[in-house]
């Protein structure tokens, strides 16, 4: 990896990191959901600054090309993240359903009481 590429990657990572931190500060992104991304970005930063680590790791895992290990880890991370998001969606669908039902029941009760009040 050339020094130039290393620098380009560092710049991109710092920009993205700054953007995410800004979004958390502006409450557009909850810290809870930003954490896994911050974790990944910091891993990338370390890998970029110390390329030796990546080589040692891929050696240890028995993968010939370090890039293949990175692809593998990245793909695994995205799969896990997608699954976690599916879990959230499922849970939220359920919560939204309960809210909607509660709203409908309360509204009916309110209208009934209004009607009874007039009589």
């Amino acid at each position, binding site marked *: 990896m050339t020094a130039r590429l290393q620098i380009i990657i560092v710049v991109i990572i710092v920009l993205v990191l700054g953007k995410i931190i800004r979004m958390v500060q502006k409450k557009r992104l909850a810290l809870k959901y930003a954490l896994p991304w911050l974790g990944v970005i910091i891993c990338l930063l370390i890998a970029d600054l110390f390329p030796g680590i990546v080589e040692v790791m891929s050696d240890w895992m028995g993968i010939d090309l370090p890039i293949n290990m990175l692809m593998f880890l990245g793909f695994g991370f995205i799969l896990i993240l997608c699954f976690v998001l599916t879990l959230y969606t499922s849970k939220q669908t359920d919560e939204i359903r309960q809210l909607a*039902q509660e709203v*409908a*029941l309360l509204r009916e009760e309110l209208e009934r009481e209004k009607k009874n009040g007039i009589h």
Partner: protein
Amino acid sequence: MRKLVIIPAYNESGSIVRAVTDIQEHAPEFDYIVVDDCSTDNTWQICREHGYPVLHLPINLGIGGAVQSGYLYALRGGYDVAVQMDGDGQHNARYLNEMARVLQEEQLDMVIGSRFIEKEGFQSSGMRRLGIRIFTVLIKLVTGKTITDATSGMRMCNRDVIECFAKSYPKDYPEPESVVTILKKRKRVRELPVVMNAREAGVSSISPRKSVYFMLKVSLAILLAGIRRK
């Protein structure tokens, strides 16, 4: 003995009045509640103009969520019996008293109105009947019980089952799956013969395009509900 009819309605402005009038005439001792599943037509306005009690869902939940709202209403209102009846005019209220009598006398937990015991009236299309027969086989397989019309939306249940359904009810295409869940809890279910009509207005929730997905999803749901530990 307080009894409630739950009428789920999505865009049923053309038939809701007839459905409610049918109940008022043929089953006057039943209270009723229309569940308007956030219709895009004026179903809600029509109900309010006529003074029908109505649950208006602020977002469209689909048939499962709508019916479950009705069961929640039944639970909180302290009803002993609740019965589902579609708002599209397919079901006839004249069977309600007989269903309630059988439910009580035989101490059943659920009574389902079935089109396929005496095979009278609207029998649905050939493809649908085939699908329903497949459900019958699957349900027999996982519960050992025979349910001839698992997709019937006309079902009456006691307080026990009202509580079960208020707590958890399948989201879409809920009928067959919920019957299996109830049977698995060792509740007593019986079918009674009823005559249903072809729908008067509105559109069925299951288009031909969706029917493959429908069959797969419901079959899987029946099997999963069948092997689920309580």
